[in-house]
């Protein structure tokens, strides 16, 4: 596309003009080329506040065409207020179709979950990231952080895991567990539960992480090695509650969440739960 065409299209009614899309796509290409590396990008103003999914939204708007089908979830829920609003924003702005079934979607935007099933080579998973810097908890100085990533010096991260284990007997970090991508960069896996971490490893789909407030994009390309940071003798464990099953679909095969102050469990992925119930009915 020539610059003149871009200037014309910059007047478009879409949320992102062609210049912005181009910049974001470039950042995405760099991120895919260097798995786990945090690529800075401009981060435009969005009709949602920074820190409310603006990074994921910008990625989605930059990769979606009018022949795409999008699924947006908040937690695992397609009908959460944020999910509905973001989905409406994307579909009206781009002309893409919407779905709640992951297998039918080509682009899936999420913050807390990876849908339980249906993601394949054709899927792009877009994750909204609140804090893209996995080392933020152990170091604040930006130059020092850049150095630590450049030299793959993650000993302080290991020390924080050591301290966690010593103090609490177990490694308590539940969501956003730090992972080593492609044997090189440690990434923050945004607030997805541990349950979803093994599903990032050698996954068939492309995962794009967007942090709008922090202006960073990073990626886990398909078929990439993703290892949670774990001591050899302290196995990585996913969430599990003994005997818990979903109160709706009676299954225990998916990630379960409990209602506050109760023993009532439900599938986090509402669409998966619905389809499970329909299949058994």
């Amino acid at each position, binding site marked *: 596309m020539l610059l003149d065409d871009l200037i014309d299209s910059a007047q478009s009614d879409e949320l992102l003009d062609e210049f912005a899309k181009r910049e974001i796509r470039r950042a995405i290409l760099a991120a895919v080329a260097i798995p786990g590396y945090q690529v800075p990008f401009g981060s435009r103003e969005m009709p949602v506040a920074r820190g409310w999914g603006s990074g994921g939204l910008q990625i989605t708007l930059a990769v979606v065409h009018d022949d795409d089908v999008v699924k947006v979830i908040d937690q695992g829920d397609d009908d959460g207020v944020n999910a509905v609003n973001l989905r409406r924003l994307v579909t009206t702005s781009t002309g893409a179709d919407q779905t709640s079934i992951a297998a039918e979607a080509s682009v899936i935007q999420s913050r807390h979950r990876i849908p339980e099933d249906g993601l394949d080579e054709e899927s792009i998973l877009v994750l909204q990231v609140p804090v893209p810097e996995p080392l933020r908890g152990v170091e604040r100085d930006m130059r020092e952080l850049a150095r630590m990533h450049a030299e793959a010096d993650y*000993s302080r991260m*290991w*020390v924080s895991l*050591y301290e966690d284990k*010593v*103090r609490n007997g177990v490694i308590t970090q539940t969501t956003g567990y730090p992972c080593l991508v492609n044997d090189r960069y440690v990434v923050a896996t945004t607030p997805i539960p541990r349950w979803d971490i093994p599903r990032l490893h050698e996954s068939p789909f492309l995962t794009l992480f967007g942090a709008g407030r922090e202006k960073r994009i990073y990626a886990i390309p398909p078929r990439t090695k993703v290892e949670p940071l774990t001591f050899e*003798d*302290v196995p990585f464990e996913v969430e599990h509650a003994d005997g818990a099953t979903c109160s709706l679909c009676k299954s225990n095969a998916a990630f379960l969440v409990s209602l506050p102050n109760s023993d009532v469990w439900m599938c986090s992925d509402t669409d998966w739960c619905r389809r499970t119930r329909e299949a058994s009915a």
Partner: protein
Amino acid sequence: MTNDVEYGRYPVARLAVPEWMLKVERLGRVYGPYDDTVIASTGPEIGSSKSAVNGAVVAAWDVSFEVAAGEALGLVGESGSGKTTVLRCLAGDVAPSCGEARLRTTEGDVSMFDLDSSARRRLRIDTLAVVYQDPAEGLKMNISAGGNIAEPLTAAGWRNFGKIRDRASELLTRTEVPINRMDDLVRSFSGGMKQRVQIAKALANSPSVVLFDEPTTGLDASVAAGVLDLIRSLLEEHRIAAIVVSHDFSVIEMLTSRCLVMQHGRVVENALTDQLLEDPHHPYTQRLVAAARA
């Protein structure tokens, strides 16, 4: 540089593997622009390390020495004499202005000042350790004693929680830190105990060279004596090449066999420690020794 040393007309070649572990040649650190005139305008004869020519500070100049495995070399002098500058250049905390420092490693000799910062840092993990005067410089106060020792271990690739804990408790036992304090934050420790943890951390990956910067200066006399005893026995046990910076002759006397005396950024005397104490040559050394003996 070759390893061949020539004595007069007779080459003592190839067979003579020099025994040094760390060799420093003509090390200098100047703050500000300098040339021969600036250098000549400072030093013990002038009585200042600050040049009257342009205000540059010659913190250290023309410092050369060797240290062998199992040997401890002292660097003595009053505050501002340049001894800590020399140590910080070797530690990699300060960039030297000129000179060379070669370190013997299992992979051959390394010219330390030619390494980039990342290679320097790797050297600090398993080959060259530093014990600072202020434990806050060498330790993270909000992390447990065990966690502080885990840092160099994980940096060296240790990934087994049980083995890391075993190694940490082994080191803490050796440095006489009560093992039931292993999981307490270093912040809550006494000065002497912090210093012992710092020594344990420095020894984590069995370095071949350890630099001590006033290791007992902040401690009261009885605690300092205990820490000095510990350092001395560790140096003997592990055949470490050590450099001990101190203004305190009792520390130098106890730990080192040879020492350099520095004044205004220059080495004014270089001798065996006991000789130096019995028969100091340089007037400045005489004054220092007299003051220490008084």
